């Protein structure tokens, strides 16, 4: 091959060289070449030899140096013939194998078993087996993954004579399969990891949700403990209340209560502790019971607020002061034509609103009444009014008058006054329902908790159809 290709670039030179080379091996060539008349034939022979090499029509060379291994075995497995390619792969010499080893001797233990139980019987039955993956043992002890195809050569009478086997080097393929397997395992592992992470996240999320639900239950229960479970029924008087929490997660500091006093009178209060959260709630609880107790001793609203102020001022003078605003008062029924006398006192609290039966609305101011707990001896201001049939008094906390409206500015006391003036006349429940709807309209703008307490004298019997007087 090499000589031929050397000659290719220059045909004339090649011919001369080729003739010389060919001449050493073929006496005929030389003989004819010596005569000037036969020069043409000599060139033909040389070209044929070159083409012969190019076309690989040397069967022996093709067999020995094929890109796959060839193996012929007798029916008992004895190796009868093996090509150089396979010998090179295995590292054996021809003498070590031919006539000395059987094909099965080249197999691993597992391969031998497979050969005996499957390979050989199937081959005997079918006369052919292809693409069987096996591992051959090399002379140096290493393993060579191969793909084996065998056919049984039969004589003219159909009797099996020997087995021809081709052996393909499957190292690349095995490596590829291993890589595929590794990639698949990796993908499966990644999938499992992702699933595990998802499950863990799900568990954590459920835990957080459960914790949040538990917290909300605690907040709700505590919040309820700060408010009366239901308002008492009062002869000749209506009452309605509503509490709007700022958030289901945060306990608020607004409070109210309504309770009987002596001689058919009733006591009430509504207020707002500065701040939010458990600390504010603890103070709210203290305030509620302090006021209830103070009312039992002395029902003068100014005195009850003074008692509360003293308790707060004494208790919370440190770095975490707690103040509250409150309105406290008494209801004394038995006035002329069903009228009820209201006496109240305010400590820093927004003024009560009066919705009159004639459709007007007014504040009931307690000017100068001071935030409770700040000073040892604060000014507290009292006020009185008469609730006649059809009149309602609304107490509220500043969550209402400090709500951010959707249009931007905060909802003011003037806005609230205009709202209830439109509403009047209205009974206690009607008033609370209407303000509750107003609060709902603030949506996110309502960032503080809000308490409402309405106390009213039902309108005269002729106006009993008024739903606000139904209670």
């Amino acid at each position, binding site marked *: 091959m090499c000589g031929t290709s050397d000659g290719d670039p220059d045909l004339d030179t090649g011919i001369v060289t080729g003739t010389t080379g060919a001449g050493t091996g073929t006496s005929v060539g030389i003989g004819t070449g010596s005569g000037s008349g036969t020069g043409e034939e000599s060139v033909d022979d040389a070209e044929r030899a070159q083409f012969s090499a190019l076309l690989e029509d040397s069967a022996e060379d093709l067999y020995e140096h094929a890109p796959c291994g060839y193996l012929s075995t007798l029916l008992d497995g004895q190796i009868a013939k093996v090509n150089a390619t396979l010998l090179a792969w295995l590292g054996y010499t021809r003498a070590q194998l031919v006539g000395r080893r059987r094909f099965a001797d080249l197999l691993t233990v597992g391969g031998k078993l497979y050969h005996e139980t499957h390979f050989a019987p199937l081959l005997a039955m079918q006369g052919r087996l292809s693409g069987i993956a096996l591992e051959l043992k090399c002379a140096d002890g290493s393993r060579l993954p191969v793909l084996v195809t065998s056919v049984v050569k039969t004589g003219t009478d159909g009797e099996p004579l020997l087995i021809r086997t081709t052996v393909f080097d499957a190292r690349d393929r095995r490596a590829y399969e291993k890589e595929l397997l590794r990639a698949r395992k990796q993908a499966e592992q990644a999938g499992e990891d992702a699933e595990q992470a998802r499950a863990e996240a799900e568990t954590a999320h459920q835990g957080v949700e459960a914790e949040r639900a538990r917290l909300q239950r605690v907040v709700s229960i505590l919040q309820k403990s700060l408010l009366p479970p239901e308002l008492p029924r009062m002869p000749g008087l209506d009452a309605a209340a509503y509490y709007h929490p700022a958030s289901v997660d945060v306990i608020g500091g607004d409070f109210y209560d309504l309770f009987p006093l002596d001689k058919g009178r009733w006591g009430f209060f509504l207020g707002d502790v500065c*701040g939010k959260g458990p600390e504010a709630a603890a103070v709210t609880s203290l305030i509620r019971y302090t006021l209830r107790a103070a009312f039992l001793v002395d029902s003068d609203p100014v005195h009850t607020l003074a008692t509360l102020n003293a308790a707060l001022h004494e208790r919370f003078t440190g770095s975490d002061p707690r103040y509250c605003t409150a309105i406290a008062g008494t209801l004394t029924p038995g006035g002329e034509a069903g009228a009820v006398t209201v006496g109240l006192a305010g400590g820093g609290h927004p003024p009560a609103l009066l919705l009159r039966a004639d459709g007007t609305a007014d504040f009931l101011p307690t000017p100068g009444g001071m935030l409770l707990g700040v000073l040892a001896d604060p000014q507290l201001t009292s006020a009185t009014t008469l609730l006649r049939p059809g009149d309602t008094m609304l107490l509220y906390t500043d969550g209402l008058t400090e709500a951010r409206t959707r249009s931007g500015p905060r909802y003011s006391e003037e806005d609230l006054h205009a709202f209830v003036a439109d509403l009047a006349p209205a009974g206690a429940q009607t008033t609370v329902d209407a303000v509750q709807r107003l609060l709902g309209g603030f949506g996110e703008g309502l960032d503080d908790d809000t308490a409402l307490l309405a106390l009213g004298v039902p309108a005269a019997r002729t106006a009993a159809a008024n739903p606000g007087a139904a209670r």
Partner: protein
Amino acid sequence: MTTGMTLSSGQTATGPLLSVAGDLDHRSAGVFRAAVNALALLPGQLLTVDLSALAFCDSSGITALISGRNNARAAGADVALVRVPPSTVRILRILGLDQVFRVDPAPAPGSAPDPDPV
């Protein structure tokens, strides 16, 4: 947590000056209290709190103002709230705190600012 409040400090002839801008509420009250506590007030001094840029003040903000006032009183000093927006003046009146603080309302629009309130 963002507070929505900025504080700046300065000095007047009678003592330190704190200017509050933005919302003084439950988120920012602690910051304000800490700032007042950090002032080394001397007996007879007047802490001036400029509220001209105050946008909103809730009950926690009021508590912080009272806390500042208590600290000042403990040091023998006093507090004046100056250039107080009308809405805050209204809240301070409802709470009766106009009797506790020296409150100087914000000047009417158009008039010259009054940096020296007392």
